[in-house]
């Protein structure tokens, strides 16, 4: 009880970016997310952890309505972005996704040149006036994605020709090129080597200055390193949510503790 109170007082100090209330997600008859309430803060890195199949990706996809593309998927409850319900019929999911960017679990570069991959978002949203500005955006995004040095000499080569880890960093760079306000990252480092992982983590830390970042990860160390807030999911329930240090050193729920110490999952 005491701990919860402390967490709530911490919440009040920072601005809430996304707040989810009583969110349920069904895939046909499967109840994949059960009554989840969570407040995701602005300028904060939030980590989602939990065993495989517990619904981390599903919940993440709710936050930018990517679940709309799955026919059998049904979402109920409210998800507010800056106080506005994103499932309101008035909201255009296209504009929402421009504001809430996403990096997927599997790298999915377009079969286009590296340059065109990065320029895709800026082009469709008209972010660049002229070629010079677009070039600048592309270079900046690739640098922030920690892949500029590897690809600067072959921007015309197809993005699909890169290695898996390079592809994932390309996808991260592509997502930040559209300048989203929130960046959702689904296991962005699962295909990366330790060096690239460190670079991406550095990037996440930098993004925190201006954005809200939500990262799904299977690595406890990574969650502990990059995030300020951690949410633990288990079988579709949000079991525990709080300060990262709190969750890792002094979890309230026995399920959280046994997951962190490696006994379930």
């Amino acid at each position: 009880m005491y701990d919860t109170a402390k967490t709530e007082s911490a919440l009040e100090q920072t601005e809430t970016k996304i707040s989810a209330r009583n969110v349920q997600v069904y895939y046909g008859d499967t109840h994949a997310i059960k009554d989840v309430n969570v407040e995701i803060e602005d300028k904060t890195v939030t980590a989602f952890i939990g065993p495989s199949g517990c619904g981390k990706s599903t919940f993440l996809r709710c936050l930018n309505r990517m679940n709309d593309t799955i026919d059998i998927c049904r979402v109920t409850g409210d998800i507010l972005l800056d106080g506005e319900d994103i499932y309101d019929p008035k909201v255009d999911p296209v504009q929402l996704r421009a504001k809430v960017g996403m990096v997927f679990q599997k790298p999915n570069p377009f079969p286009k040149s590296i340059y065109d991959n990065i320029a895709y978002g800026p082009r469709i949203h008209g972010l660049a006036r002229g070629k010079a500005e677009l070039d600048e955006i592309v270079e900046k995004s690739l640098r922030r994605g920690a892949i500029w040095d590897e690809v600067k000499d072959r921007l015309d080569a197809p993005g699909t020709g890169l290695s898996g880890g390079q592809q994932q960093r390309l996808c991260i760079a592509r997502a930040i090129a559209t300048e989203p306000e929130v960046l959702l990252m689904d296991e962005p480092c699962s295909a990366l080597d330790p060096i690239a992982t460190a670079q991406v983590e550095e990037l996440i830390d930098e993004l925190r200055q201006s954005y809200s970042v939500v990262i799904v990860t299977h690595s406890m160390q990574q969650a502990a390193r990059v995030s300020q807030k951690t949410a633990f999911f288990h079988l579709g329930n949000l079991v525990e949510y709080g300060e990262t240090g709190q969750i890792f050193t002094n979890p309230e729920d026995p399920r959280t503790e046994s997951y962190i110490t490696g006994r379930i999952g």
Partner: protein
Amino acid sequence: MTALPFLLLILATLAGYLLNRMAAGSIRANGARLHSMISYHGMFAALLVLVPVLTIILLWLAFEGPIIDRVVMSGLPDGLLDGQGDGALQLVLAEIKSISRGQIFGTPEDWKIAAADSYSALRTQSDWWMVAVVAGVSLAIIGFARSRVTAEFRARQGVERIVSGLMIFCSTVAVFTTIGIIVSLSYETVRFLDRVPLSEFLFGTNWEPQIPLREDQIAAEGAFGWLPVILGTMVITVVALFVAIPVGLLSAIYLNEFAPRKLRAVIKPVLEILAGVPTVVYGFFAVLVVAPAIRDLGQSIGIDVAPNTALAAGGVMGIMLVPFISSFADDALSAVPSSLRDAALGLGSTRAEMMTTVLFPAAIPGIVGGVLLAVSRAIGETMIVVMAAGLIAKMTINPLDSVTTVTVQIVTLLIGDTSFDNPKTLAAFALGMMLFLVTLMINVFALRIVRKYREAYD
């Protein structure tokens, strides 16, 4: 009688399979480790029997007839048939054969009856010989295969070699057929070019293949310039593609990405039915509905329209081609990995932007495949054109005029009494050759384009 060898073949194959399988099984039962599974040992023997023996039977059946004919004809009494033509010899042979079947007309000469007897004797002998050969060879192979069964014997590799040999054979069948077609076409084309100079054929603007068939017939000298004919084909093909490509592609895009499930469930089967409608029916539609409609429309705005128009034939042909293009395009779009859709949508593109910038470019090779098939169908289509576009070759690109196409001309040239030594009939082969070259060029060209612009997603 002919069933017996096949029966033997099946028995021998089964026997080979079971024998080797059992032999391998007993080796395994004695505690040895087999290299291949016992069913591979069985398969090895079965294939080893099946392939050569089947070949023997088929070759025997193919050559038995001609060889027996030869033997019978050369066995006839000397001097009887000296100096007779080919046709007469054929007649004699046919009569001998029908006598041997018991169909006797009038009173045949004694030597014919004798020949008929020897003919049926030879046939029976040959059949028994075949049975004997099949049985002997089968036994020998079974014995050989059985002797190969050891623990180390690589039966799986053996089976794989035989099967891959069969596959190579099958895949070359198409190649050799194509080569055969080209060779026979070229042969006739060369004969045509002996009679009509190449320059006239290639650059002549007149196509009037009516030539005197008999010495005493009065007719104009024929003209064999292929340009008006190929021009007609091109006009109709272009009209058809103008209808088919936009309609087909847009319907595929709509069905694939935008249509509600229920609508898709209705439209897809309907499109597939459209693909199954015989072209004659489309021809009716063109003649009875579309052509009069175009004519009326033309008259109402003061344009003179021919009763048979390239527009009517081409337009209806376009409708016929819609299902080809739409189903190819639909498949190609569906084959694009959904992770690419997610990527585009996740970056905030609309579904239309996703379609034009990601799905469509990635699906281009499949879509071009469908379009190419449609082009080939349009160029090769005959029935709709015969019914709705006319037979007169005109040097025109006006789709409101009546035109004719290469395929229609080939058909009309070969219909009726024809002999294969006048330019009128030979012209059909020359046209066929040109059609072949044109489609080949289109295909090569399209593949080039695809290779240049495709966005490969794997």
